[in-house]
């Protein structure tokens, strides 16, 4: 990624960063839901795959931006993290934990309601992979996304 693009990402206003975080978080579930809905139609398999990938693209792009924004600060690879960086990192991890807890509680509650309503849940490779992918994609990315969410706009250079 070029320096100009990197600088542009670093100076993204918070409102835009929050929009990107929302897209990153919502993109994958929307793509999986669309895939599940389209599977039951008579549409061509390749077309379904193309739609799925098209919906997935904004998620991947926004995840990359989120990762670039927090690079070196969340993973501690930046040579010098000062007290504000460390405090922000702590806040980002705490918020990630809260978001993750909310998602897990909601998912558990929905599953519980579904099962107690007399339905059964078939857990096979097809049903499990969206959840597994969610964990693989979002678990490492959440702190970076939360950092992009909470940090206020950078002060103008002076």
């Amino acid at each position, binding site marked *: 990624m070029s320096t100009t693009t990197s600088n542009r990402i670093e100076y993204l206003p918070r409102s835009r960063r929050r929009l990107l975080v929302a897209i990153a978080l919502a993109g994958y579930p929307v793509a999986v839901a669309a895939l599940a809905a389209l599977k039951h139609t008579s549409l061509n398999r390749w077309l379904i795959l193309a739609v799925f990938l098209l919906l997935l693209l904004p998620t991947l792009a926004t995840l990359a931006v989120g990762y670039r924004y927090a690079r070196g600060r969340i993973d501690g690879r930046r040579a*010098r993290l000062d*007290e*504000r*960086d460390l*405090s922000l990192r702590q*806040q980002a991890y705490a918020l990630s934990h809260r978001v993750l807890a909310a998602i897990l509680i909601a998912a558990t509650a929905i599953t519980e309601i579904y099962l107690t309503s007399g339905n059964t849940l078939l857990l096979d490779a097809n049903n499990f992979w969206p959840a597994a992918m969610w964990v693989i994609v979002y678990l490492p990315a959440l702190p970076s996304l939360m950092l992009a969410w909470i940090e*206020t706009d950078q002060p*103008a250079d*002076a």
Partner: protein
Amino acid sequence: MPDHQRRVYNRLAVLRAERGLSRKQLADKLGINYQTIGYIERGDYNPSLELALTIAELFRLPIEAIFSLKPMTPLSEEVFRDPPAEPR
């Protein structure tokens, strides 16, 4: 700055300008990132006690001349303020 924190007002921008220091130069002297200076100046980040004391030491001023929990008056006003009336 987290919502539960009180805002700490400061004169960092004025003092920095007075000494002809850029944010980068001041940050290097303090061993922090230059963006942090901007966040402190804007009141978006409250420095730790250690950092506040280091800043005070660097400017050779008492800490209360740089940081305050109340909005700060202009330095000129403080310097030329009427002296307190002498006791009779």
